[in-house]
Structure formats: structure tokens, C-alpha cells
């Protein structure tokens, strides 16, 4: 066929993207309970098990960037104001665009699935190791620090009703075959909500199709893809219908992971001062032009891959790769729409701050009224709307008053167990959590979210708790990040099913020792 400058002559004509080894899932991080020989931090970057669990893609380079720092105390005395917020973002911008240079770990595998792990710019020195995948390995740094590492397949540590979340935001591709030529039909212009909307036939649970949204998709209906109702749906008993099921959509699934347990003294020369370990992950895929360079003309090269690797200077290495995905905070993509390729910014996401505020206000108009309908107090100002509203903002100034409390309120913890040393550590605020998009592990805490992220944290439900008014009380106790995980709340709520939105624990028990994530299925 004459191709006549048809670049996509053979390709799928659509920019649909298959599941890729570059799809990062989660960035876990918490202080290790094993303090023998000094404090250690556990870091686990998880990603899609492509080509298969336990086998990594040799074209992908994973980076884990680490920046130990002092704990910063938010100026609590200040009245939350847009100026304060913009000042905070500006300070971040100067930090991340300035001389700031995090340390990093680069991991990739060769054609034989043997992992190369390199530690760069650490206080404890630069070094590299080659590891067998799918085995726990112990590495010694030049300074004598012992680092544990595991690269390979594990059980997916995320336990979550993802279809429920997608139903709450009316994300059509989870439920319908949405043509690529209809990008406007992805997140439909229907109010986001935690409770089903009366007459929202596009998304309400359909008992005729129990698998709908769990693999089964319908043909996108013709006609307007909108909702014209005025209230939440109620059953004959006056109960609302939850968009969540509480079921674990990730049950029985595997992933690939890079898991490390690293002494704090290797990360920083000031472990007593640098109590926060900021960490985020990135995936980079080899550019085609450089793949050609590494395709051997002679079999000799296949037998001696190191001969090629040794010729690559580190500074030039990243130029041969393309950044695909970043991961720091869970649900940063939902909060910031970072799934868009051009928004893969990681720690440098301060420029998304205005978008974050507007997006949070958009979510608030959906979740806020849902929370109020259940008789709970919300941090979002929705003018006592009796039902969720689909509203978007074009300016930060208009959105900010609505989300002020949501952004600035301290996220209360259910008890003091997180603060294992009883230190005067301030509670965290959403504004600090999502920008920059890093997992900021507080070494003086247990590392439970938002002071890091432990494997057992039900972060999806804690994310929703941002929209609760933390100054309100339930059963004589202040609201906290775990409130929506409390079965007693749902037992008395006018809702069906009476379940926390997401499962309370993983389908497989986590290990009490390294590598902590459960064995793969």
C-alpha cells in the first residue's frame, strides 16, 4: 500500500495505551520497626506486572528519589488565606527549582531479568549492585550500611473498591465502551457523589448486571449523557444507596515491586535533624533511538551486556529515557488529574496548585452534599445544597472560599498511636500532603498516612475523610481520618449497603518482616 506519508499506517489509529510496566501504582513508605543498628526507612514502589509478575521490562528504568529534610511546621496562627497558600506554593517552587538535588535509586533489569540497583548522591556514598530478582538481597554501602532490597513480583498491596470510586466520579470508561473520539464522555458532567442520584441510570447499580464496572462494560447509550434529577436516590425504607460496595477490586492480583529497607544514616548525614524522608517514584521508558543503539549487530554483545552499560555515563543516561509516570501520594491523580501525560510532574507539581484548588472544589460539590445527607459534617462549603452538584471553576479566587477549610484543616488521627514518641508533631493538612506530590515519611511516627504510608493504611477512605469537618464529633469523639472506616458509623447511617466504602484489610496478610508485601498469588 502506498503509504504517502502516513505515519500511523499500521499503528492502532487511536492513542489507546495498554497496561504498561511504566504504570506506577503506589509509593509506600514508613519507618521500619527494626531499629537494630539504627533507624531505617522502608520504601516500596509498586507497578504493573508487565510482562508478568516477577519479570520486569528491561526497557523501563525506575527511579526512586529521596530527599531527607527537617520537619516544617505550618504557620498555624495564620488565618487560612489565598495569599498564604500562594506564598507556600511559591516557596516550594523556589525549593524545587533551586539547588535542590535529591538522592536517587535507579533500578532496571537486563534481558535475563537480573536487576541493577544504583544508589546515587547519598550521604552514605554512591554504589551499585546486581541482584537476582524475586529474592531478598542484602547490600553493603561503601560506608558499611546494610540495605535490604527486593525486586520482583508480590501480591498487590492496594485494597480498594476502585469501581466504587469510579462510580462516585462518573468515570464512564469503567462502565462503558467510550470511543476514543469522545474524550468529553470520559468523566461525564454528572455530579460526583458518594450516594446514588435518583434517576442516574448511567451509573446507578444495576442488579441485572452485577459485574457491571467489574470487567463488564455496556455500550455507551445514545442520547444526552447527563443527569436531570434533583435528589439522592432512596429505597422504600428511606435509605440512600452507597456508590461503594466495600469489596476489594484488587483481590487476587499481583504486581511488581521495588522494596528497600535503608538506614536513615545512609540517606542523610543529619539523621537527628532530618526527620522527614521525602520520597517519590518515577518510571522512564527507553527511547527508540537508544534501543537501536543497544540492539546488537554481533552476538558478542548479548553475552557481555556490562560492556555496553559501562560506557554509559550516568548524567547522559536519563537523556535516553522518557518520563512516563510519577507516584508520591495516593489519589494525587484523582485530586490533580495527574493521569494526563503532560502532568507527570512528581515533586515538581507546584505549578498544578491552582488546578488542585479548582479540582478540589469540583470534587467538594459532589462529596460535600453526600456527606451532609448522611448527617455528617463536611469541610466543604456547599451552601447546604440538598444534593450533589456538578460545578467547575475557571478561577482559583472563586474556588478557594469553598475549599478553604478542606485545604487547611488538620487531618485528625483516630488516636495517638501514630505519634509513637509523643513528640509535638503537628497534624498534617491536605494542602501540605498533595503539593508537592511526595510521600513525606515522618521518622518519629509510625508512618501511617499522611505521615508516610503503611501497607495496612486504607488510604482511599482516608482520602474521602478530607471532606469531613474535623472539628465535628461523632459519638462524643472528633472526626478523624479513619471515621469512614468505622463500621458503627455505617450501622446507624441511612444507607445501603451498610459498609465502609473500601475493604478494611488486604486480601493477603502482610509480612512482619522484609519485604513486607505478601507473596504473589
Amino acid at each position, binding site marked *: *500500500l*502506498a*503509504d*504517502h*506519508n*502516513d*505515519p*500511523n*499506517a*499500521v*499503528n*492502532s*489509529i*487511536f*492513542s489507546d495505551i495498554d497496561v*504498561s510496566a511504566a504504570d506506577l501504582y503506589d509509593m509506600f513508605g514508613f519507618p521500619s520497626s527494626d531499629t537494630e543498628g539504627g533507624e531505617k526507612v522502608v520504601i516500596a514502589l509498586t507497578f504493573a506486572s508487565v510482562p508478568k509478575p516477577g519479570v520486569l521490562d528491561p*526497557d523501563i528504568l525506575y527511579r526512586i528519589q529521596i530527599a531527607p529534610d527537617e520537619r516544617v511546621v505550618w504557620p498555624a496562627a495564620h488565618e487560612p488565606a489565598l495569599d498564604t497558600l500562594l506564598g507556600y506554593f511559591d516557596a516550594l517552587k523556589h525549593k524545587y527549582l533551586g539547588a535542590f538535588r535529591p538522592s536517587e535509586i535507579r533500578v532496571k533489569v537486563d534481558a535475563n531479568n537480573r536487576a541493577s540497583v544504583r544508589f546515587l548522591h547519598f550521604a552514605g556514598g554512591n554504589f551499585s549492585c546486581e541482584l537476582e530478582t524475586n529474592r531478598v538481597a542484602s547490600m553493603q554501602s561503601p560506608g558499611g550500611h546494610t540495605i535490604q532490597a527486593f525486586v520482583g513480583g508480590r501480591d498487590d498491596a492496594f485494597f480498594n473498591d476502585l469501581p466504587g470510586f469510579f462510580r462516585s466520579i462518573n468515570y464512564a470508561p469503567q462502565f462503558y*465502551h467510550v*470511543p*476514543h*473520539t*469522545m*474524550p468529553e464522555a470520559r468523566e461525564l458532567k454528572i455530579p460526583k457523589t458518594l450516594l446514588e442520584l435518583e434517576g442516574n441510570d448511567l451509573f446507578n447499580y444495576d442488579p441485572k448486571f452485577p459485574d457491571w464496572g467489574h470487567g463488564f*462494560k455496556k*455500550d*455507551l*447509550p*445514545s442520547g444526552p449523557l447527563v443527569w436531570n434529577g434533583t435528589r439522592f436516590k432512596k429505597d422504600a425504607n428511606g435509605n440512600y444507596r452507597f456508590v461503594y460496595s466495600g469489596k476489594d477490586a484488587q483481590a487476587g492480583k499481583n504486581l511488581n515491586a521495588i522494596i528497600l529497607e535503608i538506614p536513615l544514616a545512609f540517606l542523610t548525614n543529619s539523621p537527628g535533624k532530618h526527620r522527614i524522608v521525602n520520597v517519590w517514584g518515577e518510571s522512564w*521508558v*527507553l*527511547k*527508540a*533511538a*537508544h*534501543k*537501536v543503539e543497544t*540492539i546488537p*549487530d554481533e552476538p558478542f554483545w548479548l553475552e557481555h551486556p556490562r560492556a555496553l552499560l559501562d560506557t554509559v555515563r550516568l548524567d547522559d543516561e536519563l537523556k535516553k529515557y*522518557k518520563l512516563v509516570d510519577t507516584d508520591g501520594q495516593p489519589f494525587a491523580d484523582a485530586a490533580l488529574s495527574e493521569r494526563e501525560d503532560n502532568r507527570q510532574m512528581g515533586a515538581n507539581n507546584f505549578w498544578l496548585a491552582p488546578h488542585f484548588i479548582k479540582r478540589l472544589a469540583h470534587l467538594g460539590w459532589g462529596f460535600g452534599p453526600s456527606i451532609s445527607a448522611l448527617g455528617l459534617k463536611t469541610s466543604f462549603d456547599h451552601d447546604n445544597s440538598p444534593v450533589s452538584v456538578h460545578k467547575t471553576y475557571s478561577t482559583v479566587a472563586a474556588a478557594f472560599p469553598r475549599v478553604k477549610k478542606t485545604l487547611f484543616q488538620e487531618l485528625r488521627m483516630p488516636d495517638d498511636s501514630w505519634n509513637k514518641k509523643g513528640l509535638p508533631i503537628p497534624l498534617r493538612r491536605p494542602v501540605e500532603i498533595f503539593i508537592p506530590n511526595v510521600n513525606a515519611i515522618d521518622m518519629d511516627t509510625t508512618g501511617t498516612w499522611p505521615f508516610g504510608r503503611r501497607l495496612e493504611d486504607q488510604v482511599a477512605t482516608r482520602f474521602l475523610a478530607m471532606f469531613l469537618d474535623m472539628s465535628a464529633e461523632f459519638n462524643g469523639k472528633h472526626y478523624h481520618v479513619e471515621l469512614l472506616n468505622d463500621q458503627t458509623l455505617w450501622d446507624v447511617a441511612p444507607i445501603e449497603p451498610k459498609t465502609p466504602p473500601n475493604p478494611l484489610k488486604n486480601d493477603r496478610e502482610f509480612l512482619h518482616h522484609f519485604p513486607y508485601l505478601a507473596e504473589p498469588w
Partner: protein
Amino acid sequence: MDSGKRNGNGAMPETDYEKELERLQTDISVLAPDALRPSVDAGRATQYASLLYQRASLTGNLKSLRDVESVIDEVIGAVNHAGDLLFLKANLAFKLHRLDDVATILRHAPSLCETPEGRALRADLDFQSGRYREARQGYEKAIAENRTWDNLARLAHWIFKMGDDAEADRLYEEAEDELTAKQMRSFAWLELQRGLLDLEKHHHAAAHEHYRKAELAYSGYWLVEQHVAALLAAEGHFAKAAERYCRIAERVPKPEIHEAIGKLYQMQRQDEAEPWLKSAETEYLESAEAGEIHYLHHLADFYLHTAPDPQRALYWAELDAKHRANFSTQAVLALALYRNGRAEEAAEQITAALSSGVVDDHIFSTAAQIFRAAGWNDKADRYATRVPESHGGHAHFHMHH
């Protein structure tokens, strides 16, 4: 070892081309049983049609591509939102040079034109329809919105045709930099385009190097081999070129390959040329008589250069230019008119082609001939001096890519 993973010859796929083709075959066979059943699953049916299209394109099989269209039409009638399938159909029509059909689809599915892919196709349509300024604006707008490799390549082609080889190559190189290790076939395709740039400039060694990289990036692809064969022919290595084309002919049912073999044999073994040329001519004519546009320019070229018959050449050239008036079809029509002794009309046509701004040795050479015949010696001299001497060497061997 999985016995189901064998190719048609019973051997394990070894080249990148074979592996990709097998993946497509496997995916198609998984979807095939249910894809078109009543109460069509829109997602599966669309994917099925798209895979068939990809397979037909990859294998260069025009008949398969025709068959895909009927599948696309069937699915369009069975789903609620046919935007993706209409776009697929528009791409197929474009590939077969049915520009009117492309325009009709875009007109009836205006939402398509709002998508990045639709906008790029609209610009391609403008280019093929001779609306060069609109095409360039379309490409530049597409790149401004999303700097994708394919849009960079589209603009590079425009710029190449208008004579700025260095800028075209720079854009192709930038397009390559956008591609990852998961897009090696596309990388190979870009290397072929860069090779063509060098071939036009008679930088044969540089063209060979691009083609070598293309083969390294995506092994076993007949399209790479086709380019190498054309390069060998341009260098005067007719026997080697013919050998390559014969290998391709065994794998790919393309009449233009048969014509290339016949033309090369004409220069060496006249008696062996005839069956190849006859086969090509027959297939071209069958296609044209079936109302297809795809091979009209091949037919015009065939009767201008391979088996000269000016009247027939003019018939097919006129028909082709009627469907798509661009510098390429206008130049062929001009030559056909000239060969029929209609120098003044030929001069009008070649003037129209040149007004596009195209910079092309073949077109300049044709222009010099025609203008001289029309008595416009100044113009003839001007274009004759723009044709490098080396152009005369193997100018009679010209292969469509």
C-alpha cells in the same frame, strides 16, 4: 514451547515483523468468534475491526483492506456511537486515496474534527487535495497542541516536499526522539523517511545507514526491504535490487513490486520482464475497473515509463487528477499531455504543480521538458538548471513508496 505460537510456515516467529503479525493474528482469532454477533459488544467489535485494519496495513494486503471496510460498515450500523469506526473508515479511505470519501466522513462527523487525530487527518486531506497552506497550518496547530511524533513527521513531509531537507530531517529526528522502545516499528518508519531524504539528494551511503537502522529497529519488515531495493536500483545495482524485490514479492501481494521487478529485468533480461509487467498491469487495471482510485497513478506511470502508451497514460492521469488535484497528480498529467503532443495544456498543468512550491527533481525535469516544447525557453532553462546532473543516471527507475 507453545505450539500455538508458530507462523504460517510452521516455524517460530523470529523477526519483529513476524512477532507483531502473530500477535495481531492471535488477538484477531480471540475476538473473531463473537465480534460480529447480534447485539454487538461495541468495544470488542471496534477492537476487532481495528485489528483487521492493522493486519491489512502491516501486510500490505490491499484485498484484506477492502474486506476490512465491509466489517467496519457492519459494525458502524450496530453501535450507538460510531465515532471511532468512522475515523477508522476515514483512515482506510485516505489510504486508498478516496479523498472525497474522507471529506464526506469528516463532514458528517464534525465531532471527529475536534479530536487531535481528526485534526491531523483533516490536514493530511488538505495536503493531498492541494491545499498546502491549510495543511501546514493544520500540522503546526496539531503540534502546538500536542507535540506527537506522528504530527512532527507529517510536518516534516510537508517541509521535505517544499524543499527544506535540513529542516525536514531535523523534524524527523525530533519525531524519533518522541518514540520509545515500545514503538520500534514507528522508529523504523521514520528512519525510512530520513533515508528517502538522503536518496533524493543522492546521498546513497547515508540512505543505506538509515535503512540499516530501520532493519535493526524492526527486523523482517518488507517495507524496509522495499526501500533498500529501490536504493540499490538507484545506485545501478539492478540484479541485487531485482533479487530483493523478488523476495518481497514472495511475501507481499503488491503489483507495484511486480512492476519494479519487471522494470529491472527490462534492463537486464528482457524476456523475463514481460510476465512481471503483465501481472502488475492486470492488477492495476482490475483495481481501476472496480472503481478504485488507489492504483490510478501507478497506471499513469506505467503507461508513461514502463510500457509507454501515451493515450492510456493520459486517460488514467486525468482520472487520477480529477480525484485528487495535487502537485504529484498534476505533474503526471502534465507529462501525459506532453507525450500526447498537447504541450500548451501540459505547460498549464505543470505550472499548476509548480505553483505549490514543490521542490522535486522529477517534477523540475518534467517542467524543463514541457516548457521547452511549449517554447518557453527561459522557464525551461530555469528548471533544467535545478535538476542535478546525477538525476539523469537512473531516472528511468522510479519506485512509488
